[in-house]
């Protein structure tokens, strides 16, 4: 069976924090040996030290992770400036990690390398991929397109882009004992793994509509023939374009929209704004906004639907990927987001998650994966 344990410490001291986390895990493992793990850490920690400590405790563990804009777990609930680790033990599920480096240089070959590493040792078909790619160097849509292609669109991909506490300057990805940037770590699952998920947002478009008249991948230069920055300044004044006010993007002849949040990068001279994902030319865009209640109600819906969709008896673990824009709007109420998910079931479920710079999941249960902004994704894991 799949055994999952979680450790979580809010001690700002790296040694103390990882020691506390490992103690918690050891206690819950009761002697079992973990095969793989996921680590979410605030940006201020000494990450190499932490990774080395984990590897010393569990030599050769298949570990990936990344820096965050907030962490959550079944141990401490929502925390900031904390460290949380989830470990997996199973005899019937194979889990392997891989890393692709320098994605902004050669994305496709980086992803091929990562997949080649993470597929080694699997005897059964790959069923699930979890990833925490860099958010600031490359368009997440491009990353996901390449990953989907490399996995032949047969393996659902889940995860979130690494973050840096709302600074949008430098994020890190973790692979075993290595701290990287501009990289994509992946974890591939095969065997008797069962999973379900759900994605929900809570943002709605408001204000006047504009047409993207000039864009290149994730950089929007002009809206309605004027600098994209003006479109934002009309609504937000002289402040920088804000992640919590994404664009609702309506592609040509589409009534449904998806959200694209800015990564805070903009060019005041050219007037361009950079987003975490691509925004196509001729798409109709509108500023989107939300309220505390609609964010929280979406989080609960996400958990409820994931539980409803779960194919087995009951899940063994839950992973949450929530957008940093949600945390930014929720402020002191952010803790309610995790707390609400816990009201959906009675038994305690080992769970772990982080606030991301963008989320990844399919829309359908088994469909191809998409890149999202301002969403809350619940991923439930278990064993058949």
């Amino acid at each position, binding site marked *: 069976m799949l055994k999952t344990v979680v450790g979580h410490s*809010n*001690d*700002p*001291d790296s040694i*103390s924090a990882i020691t506390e986390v490992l103690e918690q895990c050891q206690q819950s493992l009761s002697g079992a040996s973990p095969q793989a793990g996921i680590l979410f850490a605030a940006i201020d920690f000494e990450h190499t030290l932490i990774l080395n400590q984990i590897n010393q405790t569990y030599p050769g563990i298949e570990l990936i992770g990344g820096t965050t804009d907030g962490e959550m777990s079944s141990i401490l609930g929502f925390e*900031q*400036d904390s460290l949380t680790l989830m470990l997996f033990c199973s005899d019937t599920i194979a889990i392997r990690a891989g890393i692709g480096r320098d994605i902004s240089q050669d994305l496709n070959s980086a992803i091929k390398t990562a997949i080649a590493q993470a597929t080694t040792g699997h005897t059964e078909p790959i069923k699930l991929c979890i990833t925490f790619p860099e958010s600031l160097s490359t368009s997440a849509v491009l990353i996901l397109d390449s990953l989907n292609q490399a996995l032949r669109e047969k393996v659902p991909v889940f995860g979130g882009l690494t973050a840096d506490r*709302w600074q949008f300057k430098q994020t890190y990805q973790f692979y075993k004992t290595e701290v990287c940037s501009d990289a994509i770590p992946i974890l591939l699952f095969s065997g008797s793994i069962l999973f379900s998920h759900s994605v929900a947002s809570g943002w709605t478009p*408001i*204000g*006047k509509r504009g047409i993207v008249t000039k864009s290149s991948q994730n950089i929007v230069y002009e809206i309605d023939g004027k600098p994209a920055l003006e479109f934002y300044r*009309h*609504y*937000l*004044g002289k*402040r920088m374009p*804000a992640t*919590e*006010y994404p664009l609702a993007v309506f592609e040509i002849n589409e009534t449904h929209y998806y959200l694209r949040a800015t990564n805070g990068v903009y060019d005041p001279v050219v007037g361009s704004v950079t987003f975490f994902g691509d925004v196509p030319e001729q798409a109709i865009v509108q*500023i989107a*906004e939300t309220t505390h209640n609609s964010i929280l109600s979406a989080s609960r819906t996400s958990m409820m639907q994931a539980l409803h969709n779960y194919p087995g008896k009951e899940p063994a673990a839950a992973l949450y990927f929530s957008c940093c824009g949600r945390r*930014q*709007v929720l*402020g*002191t109420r952010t803790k309610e987001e995790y707390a609400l998910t816990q009201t959906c079931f009675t038994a305690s479920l080992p769970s772990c998650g982080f606030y991301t710079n963008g989320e990844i999941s399919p829309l359908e249960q088994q469909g191809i994966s998409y890149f999202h902004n301002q969403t809350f994704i619940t991923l439930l894991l278990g064993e058949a």
Partner: protein
Amino acid sequence: MESEQIDALVMIKHLERENRILRKKLERSEATCLELEQTNQKKEYLLRQIINELEDSQKEVQEKRQLEQTLIELKQTQSQLIHAEKMSSLGQLVAGVAHEINNPVNFIHGNLRYLEEYSQNLLNVVQLYQHHYPNAVAEIQAQADEIDLDFLQKDLLKILISMKLGTDRICKIVLSLRIFSRMDEAEFKPVDIHEGIDSTLLILQHRLKSKPEYSEIQVIRNYGNLPLVECYGGQLNQVFMNILVNAIDALDELNEKRTVQERKENSTQITISTSVIDLEWVQIAIVDNGSGIPKEIRQRIFDPFFTTKPVGKGTGMGMSISYQIVTEKHGGKLECISTLGEGTEFAIRIPVRHKIDRAS
């Protein structure tokens, strides 16, 4: 002693940890406070902009509505102008023709009396000749035979009678045309409404008579004892004309669908009733026994440019102009009451005295 020291160390470590966490939390909460302030400011600015946009779009809607209203009014004014111009030209034409015909007809009509007298005198002389000279010379006899003198004597008087009837009729029509056009009455004047209705009917006589393709339309006049009504006589006659033409069209249309037998059994008729409602108001009701007007058409019947007639046959202005003449120019009321299968009534209510008079 040693265990106490250990306990103290543990306590110190614990306190140090708590201290670290608290410091970090303080640092973080200060940052969060700033972020929240900014979040609030952004939200405030966004909402203000959205409200501005909403206000702008409301203004736009308001302006658009005003423009639409102005456009409607302009269209109405334009149609009124066109109609007024048309009616003015037509009125001038009718008045001119009536005036031009009036003199020569009076000349003929007036001289007919003398012509009749002279002819009678001449006939008397001829009869005297015949009495005293029964055997006329051969040449006279031959001429009398050739012109059939006996027939001529009888027929001459008949011709004169028929000429008199003809000129009588021309005089009446000319008078009707003059009454109808009322070119001389650009102001409110006391008018005999019945005279107006009769002159309108006379002009429409050709539409009421039986023709090969249409049956005769019977006109029933139920005239009450109306006082003179202060109004624009010419314009009111326009209203009678528009309503009567519509009624005749409706009855003709109904007859087209009927068999000869049905036409005989159900004669088509227009009833014109006039009455005094009270000291201030009179009513003229024009009722036909046609097939009636459906509700959806009735609701739009007074709309400008609304017509159910084929292209080129109706302008859709007649009823709209009539409505304006009755309601706006005379401060009256024009109602259309109709029951499908039974017929239609147009009720015109007009104040006996002009409003300005009453106010003064």
